[in-house]
């Protein structure tokens, strides 16, 4: 007789404790976020691309899409310009990037070049869990996100958030029906996941919209560069050091006459009024023999000899006067770091490497859909094509003595691709056209 009230008391206490525990865990949020001081330098003119969201498990694709949509909606009123989703996806597809899991491995600078974006938002859905236990159900969502400046590789914003909500007995329903129905409705209704995602992104992105209002502990203490960018920047620096070492003797000789005190790495780029103006492109593409130092380094002589040797194809004839300076030496292609950015090259190119020679001008093909004497007529056609989603542009041709405004569509690296669109333009848009080199 005395045991029963005791049992009831313990049970009641347990139930109350459980309800309190569940009650306090309702709509719980765990948000860890940090921003960089440079985030507020992204202004209206800067373009930010929100990339497709990576997932960690099966069946999370829909949540990932929802999360991306919420990111777009919430960041729409941020100071920067959001790149349209179809442009982001289209550009990524063109580069064969359809797996969001790979985005983290790519140098953000490369992503910037692919997308024409100043910053990219990379995100991942870590967990989506919906549990149902008859009178209690819960949804838990966990995401991580980071915004990276593509120009410097700096992480501007990084956040991790877990959001959970539940429905059931702990929410003090008025009747048993609500206690039983509410949990199952809650866990099966996709809208609740939508609401949770939307709520989550609202909290998540608040700091991005007002980075100045972030507390001190939510700011990066130092500049954090993404690992992919750090790796490639280091490689670039090494390549440049190598190149600088190779160029060093010539630089020293050149500078010694002007200013013996100056170091080999500080070269004034703009000359004083007493010296001829510095022409960048000319200096790069053509070598003026008058500017050549009087005493050539042994290395320079060696290069000269190597260049004078017959080419593997046998096109160039041996030059008997290889040691005497030729009036003009073909321009040298500047060392491009694109290669190290994409695939680190363990063997830096040498002077005799064909990659150092002047690049062949790359030819492109375009589709000409009309030529007009009046500019406004051409512009009208461009506007019309633009509205239909084609990338049309204007070129001016004065070769025939008269000015002609040519309307051209898209640009392709090969003629076949251009011909494909040309056919489409003719059949769908009824636009007679032809493919022409650009």
């Amino acid at each position, binding site marked *: 007789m005395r045991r029963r009230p005791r049992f009831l008391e313990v049970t009641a206490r347990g139930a109350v404790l459980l309800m309190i525990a569940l009650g306090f865990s309702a709509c719980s949020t765990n948000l860890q976020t940090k921003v960089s001081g440079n985030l507020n330098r992204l202004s209206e003119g800067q373009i930010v691309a929100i990339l497709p969201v990576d997932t960690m498990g099966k069946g999370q694709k829909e949540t990932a899409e929802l999360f991306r949509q919420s990111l777009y*909606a919430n960041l729409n009123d941020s100071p920067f310009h959001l790149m349209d989703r179809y442009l982001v996806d289209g550009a990524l597809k063109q580069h064969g990037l359809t797996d969001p899991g790979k985005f983290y491995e790519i140098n953000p600078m490369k992503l910037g070049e692919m997308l024409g974006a100043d910053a990219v938002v990379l995100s991942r859905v870590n967990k989506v869990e919906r549990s149902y236990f008859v009178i209690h159900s819960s949804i838990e969502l966990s995401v991580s996100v980071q915004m990276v400046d593509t120009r410097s590789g700096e992480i501007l914003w990084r956040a991790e958030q877990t959001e959970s909500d539940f429905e059931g007995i702990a929410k003090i329903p008025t009747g048993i029906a609500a206690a039983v129905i509410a949990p199952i409705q809650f866990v099966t209704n996709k809208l609740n996941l939508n609401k949770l995602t939307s709520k989550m992104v609202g909290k998540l992105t608040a700091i991005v919209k007002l980075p100045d209002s972030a507390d001190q502990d939510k700011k990066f203490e130092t500049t954090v560069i993404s690992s992919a960018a750090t790796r490639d920047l280091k490689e670039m620096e090494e390549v440049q050091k190598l190149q600088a070492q190779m160029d060093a003797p010539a630089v020293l000789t050149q500078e010694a006459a002007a200013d013996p005190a100056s170091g080999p790495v500080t070269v004034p780029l703009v000359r004083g009024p007493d010296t001829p103006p510095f022409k960048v492109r000319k200096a790069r593409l053509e070598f003026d023999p008058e500017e050549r130092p009087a005493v050539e380094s042994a290395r320079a002589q060696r290069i000269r000899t190597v260049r004078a040797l017959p080419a593997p194809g046998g096109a160039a004839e041996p030059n008997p006067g290889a040691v005497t300076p030729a009036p003009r030496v073909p321009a040298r292609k500047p060392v491009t770091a694109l290669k190290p950015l994409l695939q680190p090259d363990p063997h830096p190119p040498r002077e005799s490497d064909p990659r150092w020679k002047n690049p062949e001008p790359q030819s492109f093909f375009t589709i000409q859909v009309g030529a007009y004497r009046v500019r406004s007529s051409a512009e009208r056609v461009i506007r019309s094509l633009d509205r239909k989603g084609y990338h049309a542009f204007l070129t001016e041709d004065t070769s025939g003595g008269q000015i002609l405004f040519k309307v051209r569509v898209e640009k392709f690296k090969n003629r076949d691709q251009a011909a494909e669109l040309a056919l489409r333009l003719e059949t769908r848009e009824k636009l007679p056209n032809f493919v022409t080199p650009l």
Partner: protein
Amino acid sequence: MVIFPNVSIAVGNRGEVPCFLRWVLLAMLVVGANGCGVAHVKVYEYLEEGKSFPRTVAILPFTVDESIPPEKRPNVIFRQVFYNYFRYLGYTDMPLGDVDRRLIHFNLGPEEIARLSPEELKTVLDVDAVVEGHVVDASNFTGGIHAETSIHARLNMVNLTTGKAMWEVDHTEMNYLGIAVPTVVTMIKGQMDNLEMGQAYYKVAETFAMKVVRDIPDPARFREERVALPMITRIETNLHPNRVLALGDEIEVSLHGEPGLAASFDIGSWKTGIPMREVSPGVYEGNYRIGKGDRIENALVIGTLKNGRGIAGKKFFKAALANVGADDPVAK
């Protein structure tokens, strides 16, 4: 037992659905059959490959029923939220500010807009389609243990080329907080939140927009195939590896690409949007003179070409990094 992906359900030892759970599922189906919370978007014009469809869209100012008190009208918030979500679709959306500026420029209020023909509207806004919205009813009520916020609205999108509606929806969205649902803490919080009318309307509008946008035909998949960013074929600078620039030096940049576009260059993220001039068709030049206090460490020079629609193409100059001021006492 798996009913939905990622949903684990506690079942009996033999893996059978308990009897009472069958009743629960039945009850759920009955409740679900009410259509509670579903926005029925009626689509009249589906998008098809090869068929012309609107690219540019303007969301007109949403009108509101006169019966709603002026202080409780959610049309401005609703329009903004709907725009935020609609932007996710593959249309090119005219910014709301631009839409309003054009309408003001032509002195067009809601009544005048309603009288305009599709052709006239197309001329005024220079878009292929418009989204019209009318808030039929809205409420924001907080009563201690019961609070609700609702928006009842009709939206439709008109193809201005054909003059016909592409889709329309008539939907009521409600956010309810009462004694029957939340914990005591949530209930009090909910009541307090609901007092913030703007925020409450914002939340309801978000749910409304999410539901509607999900069912609107999306041209993104057709447009993805034709994406062409402005092309830059070459970028050159006067930078040399491992050279530190000093006060008064100039970084000169030249860019080769599509003609007739707006060009600029950045020095890392330190100096951005330095304008460039088109010196001959497709060749752009610009420079930056190192000033007092300028310090740059290992920054890349990046050229940008932007077209009239704000779409940009970028190319990085990777042959040399820009370093300024590290060894220059004046710059320090």
